């Protein structure tokens, strides 16, 4: 039979936040390269780390260029997703994702399997080649 639900909620959970720590990309963050370039996929004893963010603030969000240190080399990269929650309808990824890029903006790899947020389409002019190799969009 249907039951009338009476709720007596204890409000002690309201201040105990259950969300995890929020991180955007800044200097020394370890990132995950998601394209199929050789530099990004060959194993190395140190993870790729960000050493500079090309931004007024040192904090990189989706669509910002950063300088990575991979396998002892410096390489520019484009941020395609981070663990920090952003504006409400944008996706939040479980890892800080990055696509390797040349100085002129051409991507190093040829395919991107992981989903890319639609927000990047706003800057179609600069990232057209990266968006062209992306397969899934979220």
């Amino acid at each position, binding site marked *: 039979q249907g039951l009338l639900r009476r709720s*007596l909620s204890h409000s*002690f959970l309201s201040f105990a936040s259950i969300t995890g720590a929020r991180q955007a990309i800044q200097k020394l963050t370890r990132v995950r390269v998601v394209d199929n370039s050789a530099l990004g996929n060959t194993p190395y004893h140190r993870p790729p780390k960000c050493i500079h963010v090309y931004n007024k603030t040192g904090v990189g969000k989706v669509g910002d260029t950063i300088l990575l240190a991979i396998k002892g080399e410096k390489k520019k990269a484009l941020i395609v997703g981070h663990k920090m929650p952003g504006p409400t*309808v944008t996706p939040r990824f*479980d890892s800080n994702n990055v696509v390797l890029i040349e100085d002129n903006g051409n991507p190093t790899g040829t395919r991107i399997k992981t989903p890319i947020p*639609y927000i990047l389409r706003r800057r179609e002019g600069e990232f057209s080649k990266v968006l062209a190799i992306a397969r899934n969009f*979220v």
Partner: protein
Amino acid sequence: RISSDGKPAKFQPPPKPVIIDKQKQREERRFLSPEFIPPRGRTDPLKFYIERKDMIQRRKVINIPEFYVGSILAVTTADPYANDKTNRFVGICIQRGGKGLGATFVLRNVIEDQGVEVCYELYSPRIQAIEVLKLEKRLDDNLMYLRDALPEYSTFDMNMKPVSRLDHEEIPVNKLQVRMKPKPWSKRWERPKYNIKGIKFELPEKKMKEAQKWSQPWLEFDMLREYDTSKIEDKIWKEVSEELKK
């Protein structure tokens, strides 16, 4: 049968069959979305009344179905940067937060081995449709621990078909106990403050006992923290259902 008098017994008509009208039973179960219930505080109830009017207005335009944390939803939003200008996302609801017009819910899915979570606002005009593909509840109100669970528990097919269910059935509670990735986790889910029942802890007994050190058993009996919403819910339910029928 012959009664004690010797005369034939008075005719007893057979007992009338009891007709259980399922339609009437259905009306007994009612669901009030949690964002209608005002939070405890000293704000003027007029503010909540005006917000409720706006929420009902929005609900007349779009059908916001009944769903709980643990149900699988498909949300289509208007996106200027997508092909077809619409963006469809399927995922399991892990959290429902906010009250009033700012009520949100977070959907989680794992696409191509990458966990993605999107937080949607229920009453945002950008949302074009909310579909419930599978309506069910879980053992907890907050499934944030799915981030530290094995990815198979958060993967759902983007082209999943809606699971049909009858109207008058009780909402099924999925008593699934989720297996976790090895520690470290984003939060220490074994601690009693999160009160999680949906994880199959494979930690040694010593660690479980050590986690109980942080238990605060007096909180359950703290009367100042009680918020009895039963009467408020009844009033708001009557108000909302009348407005929606118009």
